[in-house]
């Protein structure tokens, strides 16, 4: 399935950079379009629970999803819509999961950002930050056992998530095992409402790479070109046997933690600073400046994205919701265990 999900993507080579940039840009655009729709559906009361958006982080996320190759592994986090799509997530999975549809990848048993397709190397996150890093690392251990020397894994974390014990344990373990793991830290300045100053005391998170004994990279998360280059380079290093790579991308979360949060606490000076640029607008300008696309072309891409999103929503809205009477209510995979569990 992964191959079919990823067949739209070309090989990465410097001579193809305009194509690569355009591809990654389109994923950013599609992600923004998907998320704007999610926001309006939430405000209309069509979605239960929270809606967590990645506005302002699309360049980092898209770069990760775009630069991974077929057969690689990806463990995204909450603000990774662009990377998920670039890695091959069908748009309809997004809406089915948010609607709690029976047909979605989690069958209504989990919602919003907790979706994935583990069999295709696309790992679903749990809410506990940092917990997915060791899971992706373990999947790479399995690949090593199976003699796969080409695959790498990438996973995402935020500035807040780096404070967890799980993150530390996993980074250290991945370094000890010299796994081809790329950990992309998006420093979007806020963990929910908590600013960097209350989250960590080192001058830059990338300094931690040295402590773990792995290679660290920094990128401007508002600049897609920089993200593609730095993430691409880190992935090549991981693939070439240089062990885990830590990439820190700098940007600003241009939305609340979730849609219920108006982010009143956000420091307005950050919004006006370079880190507060909207990566999508920056990329649009760059496309025009490089003459890789003009405004008419970009408008037509936006139209296509909107159409794709509307089609997926229309389908997902007509599909059946999870139904208690059809639920197995069985959390066990083994037949004999499932039977024993259901006796009383």
């Amino acid at each position, binding site marked *: 399935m992964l191959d079919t999900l990823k067949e739209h993507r070309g090989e990465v080579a410097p001579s193809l950079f305009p194509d690569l940039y355009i591809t990654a840009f389109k994923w950013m655009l599609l992600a923004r379009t998907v998320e704007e729709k999610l926001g309006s559906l939430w405000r209309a009361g069509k979605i239960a629970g929270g809606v967590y958006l990645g506005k302002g982080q699309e360049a980092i996320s898209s770069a990760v999803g775009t630069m991974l190759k077929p057969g690689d592994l990806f463990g995204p986090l909450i603000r990774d819509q662009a990377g998920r799509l670039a890695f091959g997530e069908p748009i309809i999975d997004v809406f089915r999961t948010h609607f709690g549809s029976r047909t979605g*990848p*989690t*069958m209504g*048993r*989990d919602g919003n950002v*907790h979706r*994935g*397709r*583990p*069999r295709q190397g696309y*790992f*679903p996150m*749990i*809410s*506990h930050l940092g*917990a*997915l*890093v*060791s*899971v*992706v*690392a*373990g*999947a*790479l*251990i*399995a*690949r090593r*056992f*199976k003699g796969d020397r080409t695959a790498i894994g990438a996973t995402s974390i935020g500035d807040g998530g780096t404070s967890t*014990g*799980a993150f530390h*344990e*996993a980074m*250290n*373990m991945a370094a*000890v095992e010299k796994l081809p793991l790329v950990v992309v830290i998006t420093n979007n300045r806020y963990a929910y409402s908590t600013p960097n100053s209350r989250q960590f005391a080192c001058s830059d998170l990338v300094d931690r790479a040295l402590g773990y004994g792995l290679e660290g990279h920094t990128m401007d998360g508002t600049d897609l070109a920089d993200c593609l280059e730095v993430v691409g380079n880190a992935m090549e290093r991981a693939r070439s046997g240089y062990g885990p790579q830590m990439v820190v991308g700098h940007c600003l979360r241009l939305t609340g933690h979730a849609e219920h949060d108006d982010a009143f606490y956000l420091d307005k000076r950050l919004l006006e600073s370079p880190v507060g640029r909207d990566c999508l607008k920056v990329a649009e300008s760059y496309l025009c400046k490089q003459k890789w696309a003009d405004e008419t072309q970009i408008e037509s891409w936006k139209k296509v994205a909107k159409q794709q999103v509307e089609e997926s929503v229309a389908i997902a809205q007509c599909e059946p919701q999870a139904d208690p009477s059809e639920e197995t209510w069985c*959390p*066990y*995979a*083994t037949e*004999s*265990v499932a039977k*024993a*569990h259901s*006796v*009383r």
Partner: protein
Amino acid sequence: MTITYLEAIREAQRRALRDDPRVYIYGQDIATFGGAFKATKNLAREFPGRVIDAPISEDAMVGSAIGAAIEGMRPIVEMQFADFSSVAINQIVNQAATLFWRTQVACPITIRLPSGGNPGSGPFHSQNLESLYAHFPGLVVMTPATVDDAYTMLLEAIAIDDPVIYCEHKYLYNRLKVDALTEAGLPPHKARVARIGRDLTIVSYSAMVHESLSAAEQLKRGNIEAEIVDLRTVKPLDVDTVLASVARTSRLLCVGESWPWGGVNAEVIASVATHGFHLLDAPPQRINSKDTPIPFSPNLWSVHKPSSQVIAAAARRLFDW
């Protein structure tokens, strides 16, 4: 030639490593050193690269096992002591236990917990955590009490598609011996009648089965015949076997080494009260460790956990009720 409970655990792992290339073991000090209790002694030499020393990172150990399981492996994680599994509790109960439910992708990992006390082990090297893990849907919790079960149930734990918390009792490691291992065990989710009796049912598991059997010998001298049911697996719980025994004896005493509040004993009693109230001639009773942290002093420890004398006394009171 005899084989101990500990050796049975090692033999099961050796056999799994030999027969199934998907199996590997990950834990602290398990390779060259052979494990804190020698449960993996010589296995690293026999299976190079498949018995791997882990950093002191229980969360990452279990997280990585989950990732490897998704990719088709059958990892065994050795916790150095059951107590330290609490560091990994998030990965165990939130990631591993829910994976199949969330994704329909199974999580076939086995987490070995060297459980229970020995004299002088104290509050952080003596815990029995089966009740804690049994609380979470999606986990299988095994508590083998015999050498044969230690062997066949560990093989079963590795073979099944769900995450298994395998509670091996340290007190039994070198105290239990058999002449040869059995190859055909009972189905793992089935309780076993360890002793037949007519007067009351004692439900137990793990090391407390042996205290209960010893209590039964004391009771026999007073002409009380206790039936002992060994739960073997506490999640899922084989309530039918317990009910069938209570139907014969009309009296129920539950014995566990873990703490009382909301534990396996409480669950067994609740199940019997719900489904077999009419079978009972007396209020069901339970004996657990005292509801305090586990004491270091051997003197204190010896009365902290249930002993055969305490079990026998409770059984007599129940018989006379």
